[in-house]
């Protein structure tokens, strides 16, 4: 065995890759193919499903659920922008002003993960309730009219997604900002850049790999999310994730659910490829010449 490997060095590489390839084949490629086949079946849960190569399901579900797709992209996009708006100052502060508290601050950013995702989203229900902590106080102070509501509106859904995905934006941004040598920022200062143009001309361009990684890590799962829309939204704020979940688990209409899942995957892949092309693949992989 070992003697044979010594004579065929390239075989060693494949042998080392084998567990990974096997894992991907078993738990990714095979289910994906299976799911695609399911999407082309017809039938009902009572009569059973039969393979009928029904490609017509794709235009049909797209026509029926395009509003939910739109909601998903809108909410996911808005939440991604919001996580950037909150995450960038946060990451900047930890990277440049954190000092000896850096580790503690980073821990605090990921600390919410120690509580269940569902539980945290439900607590937002309490915070955003019509007469809850936030709105109740503002209404009592007369800062908001009594009929103002946030819960069960798109704002609540976006707020929930923003909160839940904030660490996925903040951590890549932190890593990118942390890598910027302080002397480069001093050089910008030395060359007459005021704080704003320092941010625009040096800090932000050098943090681009983090911006791209963070926005992909946030946007992709956010578009497919269904928990936030389910718990914080209303029947008109359903996202595509809610529909897919309902098709599979409530109505047991597997072909429709599978087709929707494929459309979502294709849409996200296209989006990512366009984004990568616009931003430059160099930055997508974080590999760039010093």
């Amino acid at each position: 065995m070992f003697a044979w490997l010594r004579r065929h060095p390239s075989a060693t590489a494949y042998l080392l890759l084998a567990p990974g390839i096997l894992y991907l084949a078993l738990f990714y490629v095979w289910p994906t193919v299976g799911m695609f086949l399911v999407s082309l079946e017809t039938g009902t849960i009572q009569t059973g499903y039969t393979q009928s190569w029904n490609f017509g399901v794709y235009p049909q579900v797209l026509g029926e659920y395009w509003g939910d797709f739109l909601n998903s992209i809108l909410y996911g996009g808005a939440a991604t922008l919001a996580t950037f708006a909150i995450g960038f100052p946060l990451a900047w502060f930890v990277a440049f002003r954190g000092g000896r508290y850096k580790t503690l601050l980073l821990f605090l950013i990921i600390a919410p993960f120690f509580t269940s995702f569902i539980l945290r989203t439900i607590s937002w229900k309490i915070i955003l309730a019509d007469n809850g902590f936030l709105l109740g106080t503002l209404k009592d102070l007369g800062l908001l009219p009594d009929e103002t509501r946030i819960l069960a509106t798109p704002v609540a859904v976006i707020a929930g997604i923003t909160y839940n995905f904030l660490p996925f934006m903040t951590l890549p941004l932190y890593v990118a900002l942390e890598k910027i040598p302080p002397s480069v920022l001093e050089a910008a200062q030395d060359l007459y850049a005021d704080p704003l143009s320092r941010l625009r001309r040096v800090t932000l361009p050098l943090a681009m790999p983090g911006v791209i990684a963070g926005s992909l890590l946030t946007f992709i799962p956010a578009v497919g999310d269904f928990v936030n829309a389910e718990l914080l939204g209303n029947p008109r704020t359903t996202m595509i994730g809610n529909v897919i979940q309902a098709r599979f688990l409530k109505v047991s209409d597997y072909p429709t659910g599978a087709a929707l899942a494929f459309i979502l995957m294709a849409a996200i892949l296209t989006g990512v490829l366009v984004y990568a092309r616009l931003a430059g693949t160099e930055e997508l992989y974080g590999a760039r010449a010093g």
Partner: protein
Amino acid sequence: MAQVDVRLVDVTKTYGSDVRAVDGISLDVLDGEFFSLLGPSGCGKTTTLRMIGGFEEPTSGRIELQGEEVTWLPPHRRNVNTVFQNYALFPHLSIRENVAFGLRRRKVADAEVRTRVAEMLELVELSALADRKPGQISGGQAQRVALARALVNRPAVLLLDEPLGALDLRLRKQMQIELKRIQVEVGITFIYVTHDQEEAMTMSDRIAVMNHGRYEQLGAPAEIYERPSTRFVAGFLGASNLLPGTVVGAEGDHVAVRLDLGPIVRLPAAAIAGRSRVDVGVRPEKIRLGSAGAATPGVNAIPGHIQDLSYTGVSTQYRVALADGHLVTAYAQNIARADGGASALPGAEVLVEWDPADAFAVDPLPAGTEPATDPVTGAPIE
């Protein structure tokens, strides 16, 4: 008298309650001067430079730039530019845009930016690389980009923080000459921080030799080399032989000092400056080794015998043991072809001779301390 470009008045920087990085420095740097802050690491030279650049605020004292106080002004509002130790080029911008950065922030018209950047790249001979990114050029080239990026703004003063530290020896020598050429050409005041005494001597008009947060001596390279005023300066700049002695009398403008090991030597009265106990200093290359028993008149002479020697081609280094075991280092230029004559062999009796005018004097070590100096370099051993 030239105009003062940078004035430090009693500038002090402390960290915490007991670390005095810079301890009450006052000095004037003149317009168009190449001024060096020279000293070992931790002597406060970089902190001093960073305070002039605006990256650190002094704990007390005042900094003036061309007559205006700038002590509390942030870096982007000071008319000084810095060449950083590791160059600190912007990795995402081309060489051209790196050089243009300062002009663009100052809203200089685009056409002017282009001409000035082109001129500056010409000066540092990098026009051909203008469109490359900093990751695609060598260390020596990056160094020149950093210089061009600072100089293009025509600052009142250019600050350089060990800019040649990362280069290899050959390139460093070449860049020293280059830097001096550029400084003369642009006529801008340079303040240069280095721990390399040879580098400082090669380029500077004046040098401040720093130690423990203050400067021990300030003057032209030849002045501080020939007349070091402290033991530290004598040891940090080149090698010195230091021999303790007591002043025993004066004759005209010379003073006689009886060395602790016996002989009496003469020094210029100015070097003694009224002290009674001094260490008489003489540089190894100022010493001639004469034949025993044939002292040259008017010259200081101490008998000893050659302990060992090393031939280095251009010169030969001798170590001569004096009567009390003290070792004196002497360099002899090999003007004629070295043939290993009898007088140069280890064990030979010789006279260590030097001209009284070539000697200097520094404060003696406090009583009871062994004069612990490295016999070869003359540097104090700590």
